[in-house]
C-alpha cells in the first residue's frame, strides 16, 4: 500500500473523546483512523480510503463550555473541554484517495466544536511512502488503527503470538504486536447507528514501519 504524506497545521483542534463523569471531555493527542477516514470520505465523497497520522507538536488548553438542553430549556453542568492549539502533525492518506485537484494542498474541518471555529486543518503534501519498501522498527504506535479481525482465529493469533491481522499487515505493514493496548474506535455505519470496533491504541508496542512508531 502506498501513502501520500501531508503536513497538517491547525490553530485549534478538539478531537474529543467520550465525556467523563458528565463534566470533562478529554482530547485525543493523536489522529484516529476512524476520524481521518470519516473526514476524508465526507470531504471528497469517496468510499475507499485508509489513513493514519500523529501530532508532532501542540499545546494543551482548556475551556469551560455549557451545553443547553433546548428541549428542556435548561443549561447542563459546565463541561471542561480539553483542546489543542498550535497543532502541527503528519497524516498519511492512501494514494489516489485525494482528488487530483486537491492533491497538493487542501483544507478540512475535523473534530468537535467546528461551529465555534475549531478544527480548521490545512494539509500540504510533503512526500509519500510505500509500506512494502519501508524498513520496520520496534516501538510504540503513534496512532490508533482498527484491528479488523475478519478471519477466524485472527484475534486469537494476535493475542497469543502477536501476529497481525491481514488488515494491519496488508494496509499498514504492521509485522508484530508485542504488547497490544486495546481500545475502540467509532465505526459509523451508513445508518449512523455507530458501533465501536476493536483497535490498537497508541501505547501498543509493535514492530511496524517507522512512520507508525512514536
Amino acid at each position, binding site marked *: 500500500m502506498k501513502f501520500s504524506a501531508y503536513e497538517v497545521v491547525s490553530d485549534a483542534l478538539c478531537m474529543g473523546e467520550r465525556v*467523563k*463523569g458528565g463534566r470533562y471531555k478529554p482530547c485525543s493527542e493523536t489522529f484516529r483512523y476512524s476520524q481521518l477516514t470519516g473526514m476524508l470520505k465526507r470531504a471528497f465523497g469517496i468510499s475507499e480510503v485508509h489513513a493514519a497520522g500523529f501530532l508532532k507538536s501542540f499545546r494543551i*488548553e*482548556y475551556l469551560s463550555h455549557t451545553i443547553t438542553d433546548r428541549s428542556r430549556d435548561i443549561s*447542563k*453542568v459546565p463541561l471542561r473541554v480539553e483542546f489543542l492549539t498550535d497543532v502541527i502533525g503528519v497524516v498519511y492518506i492512501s494514494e489516489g484517495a485525494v482528488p487530483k485537484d486537491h492533491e497538493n494542498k487542501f483544507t478540512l474541518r475535523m473534530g468537535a466544536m467546528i461551529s465555534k471555529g475549531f478544527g480548521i486543518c490545512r494539509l500540504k503534501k510533503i512526500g509519500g511512502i510505500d509500506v512494502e519498501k519501508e524498513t520496520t522498527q520496534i516501538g510504540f504506535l503513534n496512532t490508533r488503527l482498527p484491528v479488523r479481525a475478519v478471519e477466524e482465529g485472527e484475534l486469537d493469533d494476535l493475542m497469543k503470538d502477536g501476529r497481525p491481522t491481514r488488515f494491519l499487515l496488508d494496509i499498514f505493514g504492521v509485522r508484530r504486536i508485542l504488547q497490544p493496548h486495546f481500545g475502540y474506535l467509532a465505526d459509523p455505519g451508513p445508518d449512523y447507528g455507530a458501533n465501536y*470496533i476493536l483497535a490498537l491504541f497508541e501505547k501498543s508496542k509493535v514492530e511496524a514501519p517507522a512512520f507508525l512508531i512514536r
Partner: protein
Amino acid sequence: MADNLIPEIHDILKLCMSYSFAGGRAQSPHANPYRVELEADTLGFDFAGNDTWQGILRHHHATSFKIAPNTPDLFLLDMADSLAAAISRGNNRLRLGYRRPFIKYGYDDRVFKLWKHAPSNRQRSRQVRPLDLQKVFEFLRQNPTVDKFYNLENQAIFERAEDATIGANLTSLGVHSQLTGQLYRILKSALYGVHPTDLGSRKKLTTLYRNKLEEWSLTISKIKVHFPQKPVRTRDMHVFDKLLETRENIEAAFPDYVLFNTSDEIIMLRPPNIDINVLRSQISNGFWLEYVEKTHNLKDLQPDPETSSGPVIEGVVVARPPLQINTPICDICQQAGGTKEWVKDYILTMNLCPSCRQVITQSAWPPDSSQICPKDLTGLEQWFEETIHEDLCEACFSLRTWGDRPKLTKLARWSEEKETTQEGKAGIISGSDKNPEVVWVKVSLNYSLLVQSLSILYKRYLSDIGVPDPAKAVEIRFSVIGEFYKDYNTFLNIFQKRLRERFLENMEVAILEDFFVIKLDRLGDIIDILERYSIVFRDSFPQFMHLDESPVRIVLSSADARFPFFEHWEIVQKSKSDIHIFLIGRGEAKMPIRALEEVIEKARVGGKRMYSRALHKLASIAGISHKLADIMLKDKQDKDYRKYREILPMSMDFQSLLTLAKIMEERNEI
C-alpha cells in the same frame, strides 16, 4: 518441632556466638555443623528424623563443612540458599579477589546498605550474634514457626548480615531467609529434583550441583498492572482499591513467586513451565497486565529481565476483548458496552416498594417524584438532583458501587467548595469562583534503574575496600534488592507520616502507599512537600544523591480540585526526572535530587531572599514574554545576572526555573 523442612530456619546458627566444642577453642557453629550435631547429642537433644534440623546442618556442599546434603530436598535447599545469597558462592567467591576474602577484608555482622552507607565510613568487627548453642537447641525443640524464628531476640535476624565478610555483607539474614524459603518452594514447584542415589561422594555432589545450575532454569518477569478506567470523580476512585486487590490476589495465589512489588508493579520469579497467563484468573474489571520476562538457567539468573543479555519476551495478560461493541459504549473505560444507566440502575439496586420500582423502571431519569411513595422518597430525593446521564459497563458499575461509602470524602468536599482568598493588608476574607488547588503526589521506583544504581554503588564499595577488579566482581542479586525494598517501604511510611504531620486535615487518606493528594492553601506549599521529601530521602537513600539519576522519584501534579483525576494519573506515570513538578496549564519543573536541597534553601523563608527576588522578576517578565525572560537571563548588563548564574547551575532548565518562580511567588517570599 515440625517434621517438614522449614527452609527459612536453615541459617539459625549464624545468629550464634562462637562456641568451644569439647572444650577446644571457640569456633563458629555455622561453619562447623558436624560439631554442632555431636554437641546436640552430647547435651541430650534428640532431633532424629527432623527435617529442619537436617536443613540447618546440611545445606552446603563445600568440603569445608564436612557434612553435606544427603536427600533431594536438602540438595534443593542448598541450591535455594546459594541463589538467595548476597554474592555468588563456591568458586565465585574468588570474585572478591581471594579464596578466603574475610581474612583479607575482615568482617562486620551489620548490613552494609549500598543506598545508605558510605564506603569511607564503613565499620568492621561488629557482632550481631545474640544466641548461644544451648539456646538454639532449646528454641528448635519448641517446634518453632517461621514467624517465631523471625522474632527471635527482637528480630536480630534483620540486623545480622547474611554474609559478614566485608564486601559481601549486603543483605540481612532475615531477607536472605525469606528468599531462601521462596526459592526452595519455587524449585520444588518446578518439579526440579535429583535422585537420592546421585547424592553420593562430595565430588559427585559438586558435579551434580554444577550441572543442575546449567540445566535448571527460572523465569523472571516484570509485571505492570494497568486499568482502563478513566475516573474523573471521587466516586470512581475505587479503581485504586481494585488495583490493590488485584495485586493482593496475585500475591495470595502465588506467594512464593512474587519477590517484590510496588503499588502497581510486581517482580515475579516462577518455574518456566508455569505460563504467565495463569495470572489471567486473578484480574477482572478490565484490568490487564503488561509484562517483560526472560528465562535464565540458574547459573546466569539475573534480577532484571530488561537489562540482562538474551532475548526478552514481552506481552500482555488481558481478557479476550470483543471485536465490536454496540452503542452505547461505557463512558468510563470504553472497553465494553454501557449496559447500565447511571443513576437509574443504581437506584434499582435499592430496596424499593414494587410500585416505585415500576415507576422508576419505566420512566426516564429523573422520574416524577409525585409518583414515588413518601417512604422511598426520603432516601431518593438527593438522587433526583443527579441529572448527569452516564452509560456504564457492568465492571465499571460494580466498581462505582463497591463498598458502602465514598472513600475520598475530603477530596469530594474540596471539589465542591470554592476557594477563600485573603486580600490586602487588612486581611479581608473573600470568596472566589475557583475551586481549591490540590496536588497529587506520587513516589515511584524504577526497577531497572535500581539494579543499575546498586551496581554502581557496589562497585564503589568494592573499590574502596581494595578488591582488585571491582567491575568484574559486581553483581546485584535478589537478596540485595529485597533488602532495598524493605527500606523503600519504610521510606514511604515515614514520608507519608511527615506529610500528614504538616498538612493534617488538608491531606486525604492515602490512595495507595505511594500516592497521596493534598489540598494546598497556597502553591508555595509544594516547597514544604519537597522539603519533607528531601529530608526523608537523605535519611533513607543518601547514596542515591551522588548518582546521575535516582531510581526513587517523585512527581507532583497540581491543579484545581475539580480537574479530572485520570489526567493527573497519566501525568504521574510520565516521570522524567528525579523530581518532576507539573502545574497543569502553567508549566513544569524538573530537577535532580542532588539539587533539591539547594533549591529549597533558595526558596526558604528567611533564606537567601535575593534569589527569590531575582526569580520573581524573571517570572514577571516571562508573564509578558518568555523570549524576553530568556534574553534577560543571558544579559550580562542585568543587575541580577550574577544571581541567575548562581541559580542556573542547579541543573534546571529555563522552563523549570520559571515554574519554580511561580511556586515561590505564591509562597509570599518575595
